[in-house]
């Protein structure tokens, strides 16, 4: 490949070129921040410059960022973190006593009593202890060992770390990782980056995106022909699909993992985001242990959680953790080495996580406000989940499964053949063509289903349910109108 001339000066050949670079990196894509978002940012710039458009703002319903959409932070968390940032505020009488106590406790656990000091790579010990206690409480008393807790820079960091550890082998022995389709594209991006083999198992759209063991088995058997399947990833509650797995389903998955000797990765970052009646979050850890020692002593697993979702929505703090179960001690030693390379997770994120797992108690001054705020966020989300499903299902050509949990809807859109042809002409995947049009005409930024994976011949988009209720109603209305227009245009 010839080198590009820059400013008329020709190069004698760069060291780092498309040919010489890590080929895996070239395969990495991440739709959530991909081309459609780049176009959205460009349009925002144009609006700022005064360019006239059929809309006055771009609504970015592409990314699961609650605060970006106007959700307010939890007062208690921000007060404690402010005191941790500037401890002189501990003298300020405007802050409640429980806020001060928490801040003091966190600061005492930090080197030099500062959130600016490094922590150990695994994370501040007393915070890991608090996380372990939270897990025990959540899981009905099943013990959690702080040594099995690894704090991380958001859940994504921990997910990638475990994958880095597990992906090995060459050729037919290369590690295969099972991921749900549709999936959160961090997984496919990480697998591409690591050169792992991606094994797709399809969620059942006709059954509310549920997980089907027969489908897992099909995918696994087919994969065995060309790789070494070792890992099974589940997102529960699901992203982008929002399904909340039943307890039975979780048991079936664990049984399957044991039979097939698979390492389970349970992404549970939306564990507080459960809305639908009859749905309940069951942690994989809890179900595993309730299945008895035959399973709980053998199945190897990592569960992930973060401070970015649920009712906190604190994406910008990059707080998270993973709990590892039944990991070989020698492998754990290697894991410590791996996490030490980046020194430690951000300490403000660790502090925030501590507050999330250790919220105000009923007898504490901040409790009332905390509960009000928490309840408001979760009930608003539940309402928006219902509204979204309801409105989308009134649109001919859009079918929407119930948004049982998480923060997204992933409706199926029927596209006229003419639209599909037009898309192909333009070199675009049909749902990208659809979403681009919606962006240009209505200033609404969604992510095409192709970015998450879908069954061949089906099209979807992912929209977050995060905009404030009034705005969401407008967005849903606009999408409805757009869809009818679009269908009309290409009929």
């Amino acid at each position, binding site marked *: 490949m010839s080198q590009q001339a820059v400013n008329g000066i020709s190069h004698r050949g760069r060291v780092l070129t498309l040919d010489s670079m890590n*080929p895996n990196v070239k395969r*990495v894509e991440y739709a959530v921040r991909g081309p459609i978002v780049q176009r959205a940012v460009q349009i925002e710039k144009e609006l700022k410059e005064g360019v006239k458009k059929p809309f006055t703002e771009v609504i970015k319903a592409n990314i699961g960022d609650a605060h970006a959409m106007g959700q307010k932070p939890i007062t208690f968390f921000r007060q404690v973190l*402010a005191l941790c940032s500037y401890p002189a505020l501990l003298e300020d009488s405007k802050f409640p006593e429980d806020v001060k106590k928490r801040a003091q406790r966190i600061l005492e656990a930090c080197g*030099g009593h500062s959130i600016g000091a490094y922590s150990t790579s695994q994370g501040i010990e007393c915070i890991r202890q608090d996380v372990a206690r939270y897990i025990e409480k959540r899981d009905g008393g099943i013990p959690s060992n702080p040594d099995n807790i690894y704090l991380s820079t*958001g859940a994504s960091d921990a997910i990638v770390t475990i994958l880095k550890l597990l992906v090995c082998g060459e050729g037919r022995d290369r590690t295969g990782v099972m991921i749900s389709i549709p999936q959160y594209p961090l997984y496919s991006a990480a697998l591409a980056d690591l050169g792992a083999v991606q094994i797709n198992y399809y969620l059942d759209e006709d059954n509310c995106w549920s997980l089907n063991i027969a489908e897992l088995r099909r995918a696994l058997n087919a994969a065995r022909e060309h790789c070494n399947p070792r890992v099974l990833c589940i997102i529960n509650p699901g992203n982008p699909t929002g399904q909340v797995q039943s307890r039975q389903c979780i048991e079936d998955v664990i049984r399957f993992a044991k039979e097939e000797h698979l390492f389970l990765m349970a992404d549970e970052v939306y564990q507080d985001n459960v809305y639908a009646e009859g749905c309940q979050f069951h942690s994989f850890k809890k179900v595993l242990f309730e299945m008895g020692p035959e399973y709980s002593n053998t199945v190897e697993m990592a569960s992930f959680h973060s401070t970015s979702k649920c009712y906190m929505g604190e994406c*910008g703090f990059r707080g998270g953790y993973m709990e590892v179960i039944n990991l070989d001690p020698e492998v754990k030693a*290697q894991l410590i*080495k791996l996490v030490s390379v*980046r*020194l430690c997770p951000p300490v403000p994120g660790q502090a925030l996580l501590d507050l999330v797992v250790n919220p105000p108690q009923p007898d504490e001054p901040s409790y009332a406000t905390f509960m009000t705020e928490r309840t408001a966020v979760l009930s608003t989300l539940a309402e928006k989940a219902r509204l979204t499903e309801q409105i989308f299902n009134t649109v001919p050509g859009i079918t929407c499964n119930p948004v049982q949990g998480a923060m997204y809807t992933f409706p199926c859109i029927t596209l006229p053949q003419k639209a599909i042809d037009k898309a192909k002409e333009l070199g675009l995947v049909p749902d990208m063509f659809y979403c681009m049009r919606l962006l240009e005409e209505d200033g609404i930024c969604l992510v095409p289903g192709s970015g998450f994976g879908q069954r061949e011949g089906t099209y979807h988009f992912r929209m977050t349910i995060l905009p404030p209720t009034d705005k969401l109603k407008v967005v849903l209305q606009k999408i409805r109108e757009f869809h009818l227009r679009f269908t009309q245009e290409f009929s």
Partner: protein
Amino acid sequence: MAARGLDLILHGAQVKLCDKLKDINSNMWNMKQLEYGALARRANRIKDELRQGVRKPYKEVIDVFQGDLHGAGMKPLTFVRQVLAACVYPPLINSNNLPLDVRQRAQEELGRCVGGSVGSYSAAAGIPEIVHSISEFIKRRDGGIPSHPENIYISPGSQWSISNILNVLVNREASPRTGVLIPVPFYNKTVLSITQLGAVTVPYYLSEEQGWALQVDELQRALESAKGVCNPVALYVINPGNPAGYVQSQKSVQEVIRFAWEKRLFLLVDELYQDCVYGENCEFVSYKRTLSEMGPPFSGTVELASFHSVSKGFLGECGLRAGYVELVNLDPAVMKHIHTLSSKDSCTPILGQIALDLMTDPPKPGDPSYPLYKQEIEHIRAVLVHNVKRVHEVINSLPGFSCPPLEGGLFAFPRLNLTPKAIQKAKELGLQPDTFYCTRLLEEGGVFTGPGWEYGQKEGTYHIRFCIAAPQDVMEELLRRLSSFHMTFMKDFS
């Protein structure tokens, strides 16, 4: 399906593996075993015991193992922390207890955050206004040489950036394997990254006799040694040094750039300690500036990645995890992929990004916070200048202990002349000789330092590394304990 058992050779012993998944990324095993892990655990155990009231010859452990200013007792900058607090809890913006410029600055920072909250994601490469601020800072620092925002990526700490760039450089499918030239002594985290990615390290030795100077002959020798072993594509430089406390002269920087140009090497330059320069006649000159001033053919062709962060210098905000890389002369097609790669990592913690902004755009004369800011910076500087002098004095006054003048950086890396008896004892205990010294120093003297073995050194030489950024009284106490311990140790093993 039957579980796959694996035989793996560990520490020379054959270990039969059980059903559990032990088959992991083979590069993990290659990552150098960190003896310091045991040392760190011991330090924590001693700290716990002291907390529980166990009697020891000292009341607290002086932890100077890492380059952690706050951990060693240095204070954060007031302006930085006030702005961060107001960003975290915006009602403080209306509080008269904070100076006006703090409140205005916090408002400005929040205005750049999506939804006005530090809890939102930012653009993957960083908040655009802050990226711009960094480019202006670089331009100012480099005498007006332009810096382009689209070449700057903010990341959760410099190691994150370095790993990302290495990830792009290291082609695992290539044969022979990708090689990276590394200085000895080196910063061990970067070397761990290189190994974890499956690349080969090609050491070049800094000259201890010449105050750890980087010599081009030695670069040449190292490159030759790689023939037939690996394909070196990159040259990793740390300036000012870590752990070696040198500051490269402009001439030295030019020589390295010329070498990289001649031998077609990608330059990875860690400039985290650019604010830590003490030596007389020493000045930090950035690789970017030097490259640009060298003009064609160098300025338009040598591929360069320079790294900086909020962890060192005057801020010392290691725990916030924020740094940046500036990329120069990279292939635009490759830059696109670097952009996608950074997008899957979400974004750098917002508080860290704000700290980066405050570092690159600090209070100016006339601002209400300026006097205090200036005072705090000067105090830190005075402490460091004092400490490096004292360390040099004390170490060189002790028998069997020596170190060159510390020109820059945050560490002392003195040389230990251990007696054969001491070396023998270490062998008996299964420890590297300098690890043995550090272990004893920790147990008996309550000072937590790092063994030279962790950072690389010429065969048969021994060193220890410790951070010199501690309050003066802590440093004096450290030197007192170190002297006392050292004399006893040397006597015991004479």
